[in-house]
């Protein structure tokens, strides 16, 4: 069957595991990003991880990418937390400056290499088909760490997202909590660098959560649903790009195909959500008519 057949090839199987795990991880973290309205902050993180990737690669080859990304990701997570705590500078402008500056640093560094366009493409858009077992292990470790962290902190995270002043009043250390979430986002970006690159990972974070949100109002449903949408998009995206290139001779970049599949799934979820809300409204109307009678 077309959904399973490509994954007899070992490199395809590795890519599948990587994308399914990443999709599930990013889906989970994405729900918090969505609730906290941190899409732009997360996008900044994805861009600032880029120079770290380049520096890591320059220093230690492919093996250095993860550690370079990790260092840059955690450093900018700290910086962003500080920046968003004090609102003196216009936050948007500050983020935009940070994003482009560090991105430019990455491009300058990479452009000094010979054959840099190929490297640049790999860093920006990922090469999921060349994922190694060591990288799978890194993704798995990041996933376990991040999911455990969010599970333990789920109550303060929820309270802080819903009612920041109430959280402070209740003694929640909001600054520290924000740092944890920013680092979690950074870790997702780091884990995803190899597979989908620094640019496309933002879609992995935002789109599954947005799709799940339009299908449900309950967090207990939204989180697993976002997880599922992220994982399913990884799988389907791989199948589509494999079929297109092997079956029809059309080469589709797998990372970008995953993103397009995600967006298509969001479109479907949004339509379904629209229908659901309409049905819900007419149910509520019937109920209020019944109560009035």
């Amino acid at each position, binding site marked *: 069957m077309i959904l399973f057949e490509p994954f007899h090839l070992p490199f395809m199987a590795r890519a599948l595991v990587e994308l399914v795990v990443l999709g599930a991880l990013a889906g989970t973290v994405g729900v918090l990003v969505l*609730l906290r309205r941190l899409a732009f902050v997360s996008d900044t993180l994805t861009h600032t991880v880029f120079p770290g990737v380049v520096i890591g690669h320059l220093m230690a080859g492919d093996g250095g990418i993860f550690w370079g990304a990790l260092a840059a990701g955690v450093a900018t997570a700290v910086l962003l937390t500080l920046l968003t705590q004090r609102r003196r500078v216009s936050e948007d402008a500050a983020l935009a400056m940070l994003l482009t500056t560090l991105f430019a640093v990455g491009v300058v560094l990479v452009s000094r290499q010979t054959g840099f366009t190929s490297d640049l493409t790999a860093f920006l858009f990922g090469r999921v088909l060349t994922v190694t077992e060591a990288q799978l292990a890194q993704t798995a470790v990041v996933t376990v760490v991040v999911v455990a962290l969010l599970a333990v902190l789920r109550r303060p995270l*929820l309270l802080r*997202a*819903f009612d920041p002043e*109430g959280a*402070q009043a*209740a003694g929640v250390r909001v600054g520290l909590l924000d740092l944890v979430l920013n680092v979690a986002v950074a870790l997702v970006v780091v884990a995803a660098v190899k597979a989908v690159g620094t640019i496309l990972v933002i879609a992995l974070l935002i789109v599954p959560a947005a799709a799940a*949100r339009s299908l449900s109002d309950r967090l207990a449903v939204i989180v697993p649903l976002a997880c599922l949408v992220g994982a399913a998009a990884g799988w389907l995206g791989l199948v589509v790009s494999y079929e297109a290139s092997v079956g029809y001779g059309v080469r589709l970049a797998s990372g970008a195909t995953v993103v397009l599949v995600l967006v298509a799934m969001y479109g479907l979820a949004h339509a379904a959500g629209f229908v659901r809300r309409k049905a819900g409204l007419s149910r509520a109307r019937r109920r209020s008519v019944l109560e009035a009678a």
Partner: protein
Amino acid sequence: MSERAPTLVLDRASVAYGDVPVLEELHGVVHEGEAVALIGPNGAGKSTFIKALLGLVPVVRGRIEVLGRPPAQARRDVAYVPQADTLDPDFPVSVEQVVMMGRYRRIGWLRRPSAEDRAEVADALERVGLAGRARDRFGTLSGGQRQRVLLARAIAAKPRMLLLDEPFNGVDAVSQHALLEAIGSLKAKGASVVVSTHDLAIAHLACDEVCLLNRHQFGFGPTGDVLTPERLRATYGGHALELRGDRVIVTQT
């Protein structure tokens, strides 16, 4: 005058954001089971007063003591009720989940809510008259009902002091009545209540004491003594009183 224990002591206190003093010369005492209304124009520092009681704005001169402790150390026994319309109505939480947030301190990070936690949540919702809405999404309720849910969250925390920031703003009559009832029953159980409001009638109705504020304190004491036209004129300044204060005072006397 009262044999009850003091729960809030303000001793010539000034609070400031950085170098800029926001409120100066706060002085007064509130006892167990008493409610104090914070009255003053917009920008007078009412919200800052409440934040100071939570230890979120530093005291730069004098002393503030909440339940016998510095404010930041009393948070465990203090519940804060924000204005409902500051919260995102699209947020995917149910009424029950919001009220359960009041129990988080007792539940901790990992344990599942116990039968007692659930019973307290149900009881708190009952007390604000919203027992039937537990499963509804928070944002689908009216403004007044959302305010009642936030009060229920505070009730579920079993506080010894309750701080409410403008809870009656834009609230319908039914919700206002429900809020006043619930605040009254908390007082009866010995909790102290600090509530900021524009509404002098509510101050008369629900509060034993009044604190008049506009950058500094214009009066603190029993409602009848403090809510005088002269003091209100001093607090609000000439123009503001012409527009709003005078008319309210007339209906009160």
